[in-house]
């Protein structure tokens, strides 16, 4: 009898080892973006199957419901299907975003500021008092000049994103 119980317990635990249930989202590394994408598709495809193929739920036929019954069915859906942690994550995400914005380091904000004020250099003034002279930015890799007829490459577009430390030139610099 004890052997039987042991077999049942061990079988149950073994079944859990290769478990489908995921408590934490797998880490997605930027360098493996292509592979990660496929992984996401596989997981979320399963989830779609779970909802629509194995056990149809309300949101799969939501569009077919008359508008006046949606509130009625939504009530059941909320009771039976809506995970409690979805509320929490929505709240958590929005809250975290706000917190992150508030807690951004001052240096980062400085870096994002425009390097120069309006009409910088128009009047050949000395730098403002208390402001450190800006060191010239050195690019790690020179950007090749493209022919005018060529479209902008993805590499260029990534270099010109806001995350780059390269600061844009002043407006109308040298126009005078």
């Amino acid at each position, binding site marked *: 009898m004890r052997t039987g119980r042991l077999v049942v317990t061990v079988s149950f635990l073994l079944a859990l080892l290769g*478990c489908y249930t995921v*408590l934490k989202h797998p880490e997605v590394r930027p360098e493996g973006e292509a592979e990660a994408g496929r992984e996401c598709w596989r997981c979320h495809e399963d989830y779609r199957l779970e909802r629509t193929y194995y056990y149809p739920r309300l949101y799969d036929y939501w569009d077919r419901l008359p508008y006046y019954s949606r509130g009625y069915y939504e009530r059941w859906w909320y009771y039976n299907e*809506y995970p409690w942690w979805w509320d929490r994550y929505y709240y958590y995400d929005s809250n975290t975003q706000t917190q992150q914005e508030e807690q951004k380091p001052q240096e980062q904000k400085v870096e994002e500021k425009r390097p120069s004020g309006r009409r910088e250099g128009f009047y050949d003034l000395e730098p403002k008092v208390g402001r450190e002279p800006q060191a010239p930015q050195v690019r790690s890799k020179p950007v090749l000049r493209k022919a005018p007829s060529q479209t902008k490459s993805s590499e260029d577009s990534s270099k010109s994103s806001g995350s780059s430390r390269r600061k844009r030139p002043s407006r109308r610099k040298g126009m005078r």
Partner: protein
Amino acid sequence: MRKVWFTVVLVSVWVGEASPWEEITVDRFSGLGARAMGMGGAYMAVAEDFTATYWNPAGLAQIRRFELYGGLCQRQDAATVSFYGSPWHDSLTRTTSDPLGMVLPVPTYRGSLVFSVGYLPVKVFDNLFGVKGVSRESGRYKEGRAEDEGGLGVYTVAGAIDISPSTSLGATLEIWRGSDSFSQELFSRSLSSATWSEIKQGLGSPQDTSVSYYKLEFEDRYSSFGVKVGALFRMVGGFRAGLAVSSPVHLKVEEDWEEARDDTVDSGSFSYHVHLPWTIDGGISWTAPGLATVGVGISYSDWTQTRYDESPEEGITNEDFRRRYRATTRLHLGGEVLLPIIPVRVRGGYYRDPIPFLGPREEGGPKVEVVDERDYWTFGVGVLIDKVLSLDLAYVRGKFAQEEGSITEEHKLTRIFLSAAYRF
């Protein structure tokens, strides 16, 4: 000397009747959960609330919100006994707590992981029997009543997990606790001159030549551990299939008893074990989302495999379980319909719960002939209040009748389940 011999004969007759051999822990399904019972107990492949801990623990994986569950149940047994043609009638009503528990779903990105803790009343011993009339066998007038009151419940910790998009597994760890109070009183008096046929024809009158009194009371306390594992498979088109297996339960019984015969009183206490067999439950359900759910379920137990480690009564052996019991398969059918406009579910169902005891209660006695199997019809209604509170009510009506020689026993059983499930 003659008086002594007569007393010995009387006592031997009474003891035989006072200790009918039937193990109370065998069978005794009484149902639990208002939604489940409203659907006739066809809940093995539905199992969408805390009572899944009992019906099929894998069903817990379907619950996405915290749930607090509680309920009440009122049970009434109205018994009518025909004792050699003389009627006896009485009823017993008890209100007990239905399942009480909490469901705790763990946040997941995929699949489901859910735990629960709580209490489930799984067996109800309430039972009533009585006689009033002249026994054709002993030729004595008898009047008496026997009553069981109590039940078995399990304190549970359960968990369920999705192991694939279509499959959930679950397990319930059970701590069994319970009690049974049995009491019986029997008055008996001999008929001096009139014969049975004369009394039946109204020609003779019973004369009180010897009045005797017999009383037996005992209090049993039960404790044990058990495990139930289950699986739930979600199939194409809203079909679900459920399977659950309950491990054998080794119940430890501690008993205090007291017996009184006329002017002598005897008492004692002892303990023994009852080994209850495996139980296998299975079912299929179909859900049309937002419209209806129908289901069918069975529960199989081979009661001939019940065992004592030490017999609670003299002369009883484990061989008696093989001879006097049978395997039973309980059948459940039922469904629910979601009403339009108002958030109300209406339910109906049926279940048949075969009687496993075949008898005889004593050697040489008559076997139990089932006249009417235990058939129950169930009705239920549930309302969802403000998206978070589900109130359910179930009405269960059943009856059965059996015959043992010249004693016919008919029971009308009424059960009302009320439960509330709050999800947040």
